[in-house]
């Protein structure tokens, strides 16, 4: 039987379709967002001080780096790959950044240019990941696992056991400061998410990434330069991981090898919880952003309602499991949907 609206040419439908670039509004899209609102409301009822503006900015600040990472990872996952190297890249770029601005170790003081240079190692490692994956046919899981170690090793070499301390006051002020009450890093994150969203829906790179994830062989058959777009996605992911590392350094005032510790799992979780399938082709930047916010609200809220730290991980795990279950719910009926 026909699905409603299949062939309709209703102007409103067309408008909506254009906005969502062909994706109808569905459970996978708004589910995580509804969960985010419900979580906020739940914590707010349990502990009213959770729902204050000041706590909102705290969450925004702590979500900034995870959001930036999630945007980069989204494109890689959309294509059906995985980038495990982001923690290593963050460490390397953090060290690079800290040693290029005014710092305790080197005599350099490149100022803003240091930020531009510091993300280059990330970009390069990302490109390398992509090239190893596409040219040498090493699965992204293994290629990026290797890159993670290599980048971390390089960062350790740079650090030499003496983490460089940032002395550039402008960057310190930016990392910790606010603009009209909004944490600066959160502003950067919002900008990155917006750029990511536009990239995904309105550029060839974004749409081809969706196509590659949905059917790589078809994409190749149609003559898309699949390998090139895979390299792009890893390069973007590396670049954003580098940016995240540098920004985190500006915040804590240190170039440190452990700056990305724990971020990989958080990022992948955010992407999946948001509804981006690890098999590729489904989800998107905004969904991943919701996923990242969800995790940070959860972490913040649990402190507010007094969940003991030991139990926090457990609750987090349970919620992640639940979210993944809901995100993949539609796949359960698949046997009967093929016709």
């Amino acid at each position, binding site marked *: 039987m026909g699905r409603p609206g299949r062939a309709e040419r209703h102007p409103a439908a067309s408008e909506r379709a*254009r906005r969502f670039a062909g994706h109808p509004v569905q459970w996978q899209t708004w589910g995580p967002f509804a969960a985010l609102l419900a979580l906020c409301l739940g914590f707010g009822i349990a502990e009213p001080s959770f729902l204050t503006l000041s706590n909102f900015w705290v969450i925004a600040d702590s979500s900034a780096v995870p959001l930036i990472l999630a945007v980069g990872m989204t494109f890689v996952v959309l294509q059906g790959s995985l980038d495990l190297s982001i923690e290593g890249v963050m460490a390397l770029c953090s060290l690079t950044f800290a040693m290029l601005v005014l710092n305790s170790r080197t005599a350099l003081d490149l100022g803003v240019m240091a930020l531009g240079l510091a993300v280059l190692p990330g970009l390069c490692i990302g490109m390398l990941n992509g090239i190893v994956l596409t040219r040498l046919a090493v699965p992204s899981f293994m290629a990026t696992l290797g890159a993670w170690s290599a980048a971390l090793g390089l960062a350790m070499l740079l650090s030499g056991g003496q983490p460089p301390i940032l002395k550039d006051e402008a960057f310190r002020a930016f990392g910790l400061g606010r603009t009209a009450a909004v944490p600066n890093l959160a502003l950067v994150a919002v900008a990155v998410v917006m750029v990511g969203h536009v990239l995904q829906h309105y550029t060839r790179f974004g*749409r081809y990434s969706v196509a590659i994830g949905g059917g790589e062989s078809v994409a190749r058959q149609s003559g898309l330069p699949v390998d090139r777009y895979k390299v792009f996605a890893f390069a973007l992911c590396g670049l954003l991981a580098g940016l995240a590392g540098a920004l985190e350094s500006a915040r804590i005032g240190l170039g440190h090898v452990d700056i990305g510790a724990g971020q990989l799992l958080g990022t992948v979780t955010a992407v999946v919880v948001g509804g981006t399938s690890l098999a590729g082709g489904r989800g998107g930047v905004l969904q991943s952003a919701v996923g990242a916010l969800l995790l940070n609200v959860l972490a913040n809220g649990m402190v507010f309602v007094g969940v003991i730290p030991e139990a926090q991980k457990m609750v987090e795990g349970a919620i992640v499991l639940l979210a993944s279950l809901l995100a993949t719910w539609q796949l359960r009926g698949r046997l009967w949907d093929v016709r």
Partner: protein
Amino acid sequence: MNSVVLRVERLSKSFAGVRALDGVSLEVRAREVVGVLGENGAGKSTLLKVLAGLCQRDGGHIAMRGRAVRFGSPREAAEAGISMVFQEQSLVPNLSVAENIMLGHEGVAVRAGFYDWKRLHAMGAAQLAKLDSTLAPWALTETLSFEERQMVELAKALTIEERTPHEPLILLDEPTSMLDAGQAQAVLIGIERLRGRASVVFVSHRLDEVLRVCDRIYVFAEGRCVGQGQRGVCTKAELQAMMLGRRHRVDSKDGSPPQEAPTSASAVILSVRDLSCAHRYHSVSFDLRAGEVLGIAGAAGSGRDSLCRALFGAETPDSGEIALDGRPVRWREPADAVERGIGYLPGERSTEGVVAGMSVAENMTLAHLGELRRGPFIGLRLEKALVRRWIERLGIKPCTSADMQAQLLSGGNQQKIVLAKWLIARKLRILILDHPWRGLDVGAKAEAVASIREVARSGIGIVLITDALDDLIALSDSLIVMKNGLVSGRFTCSAAKPPDWRVLECML
């Protein structure tokens, strides 16, 4: 006389020592629809693959518009104006219709890497308009039905018109094999529309379709071109004889032993009473006896598919009763039905059939390892004997195939493996066959028919749905006809077969 667009001479191609094409010659003229007929494995698909640049020929010549060509990649073939529609659909499910149609050729809809969605949708709509299709270009492809997706495929193939100065040559690899009669109709109309603007090579194993749309027909068998025909000159029987070669025709009128009608004394195993489901079927009642083949006729949308899925527990009816051996049952999921001895054989082998990479034997016993258990281990000797017995009984070829990878066997034989998978279950009482011949060629179908008879003889009740009406009538002991969700006719076939027009009357 139209000019020759494509000329193929003595083309040959082998895969791992097996000759798929053996000196094939043919030509295609401008704005001509050329049919290529043949059983599975006759070399039809290989021919198209070579023409589309997906694989390289071993010998022979191909000339496009008089110039010798050799396509190293699909891209080179496309530049020469060749566009292919694949048997397995080559659309990306999570993209919009317009994106799929224009994929890789977005042209002015992408400026400096940025999409102009309005323009892209307009371009997609323009391609669809060539086929008089009114599909929404922004619709998500995975929400479309199979025949709608097939139209998108055709529209996608037509985009080549804007990219080459020549009229395109469009290769269609069995575009209708997965469709039922009504759906195929839409695609055939699409092919008719292509005629006005392109040359078409239409590969199929459905004689009626080929006779209907093709100007000329080449018949393939075992990698060779064994015959040619002209529309209006050669008949269905002639083509069939060419396709089958030495083998005799297998159908209900000759060859097969007369069916032993299940006596009305044999027990009713399944009875359905007033089964209803909103918008799908209403107040359906019937009985199925042991050893009986019950055919359900009806056009797509008549509710028969939905009814079958309800019998198997894949859909839940709103009201009514399904009783097994006189006791009412209620399935929560298909596993419940399987547990009680109901098997389901789907038409789509590629999605629900054999597990690729596993052997024939492993595929057969996959679901019933429990019955082969010797302590904590699988009784390998037991398995071997069982598998050999079923290979023999269903005539799976080659008969030494137990250890071969299942996906290497032909479509018909894969279908038999799936059949065996169900039959191995000792408790099987009822087998539901949902379009069991979709995608099978004439020979494979005849063999599948024979095995279904064999199954019924052993006392299993069979519910059969298929679009091929003559097969349905030939094979069924009794027949119910559905129309708009209601049972519109009942026939008993064991004594005398009802003429097909009577059944059709009830359907339409």
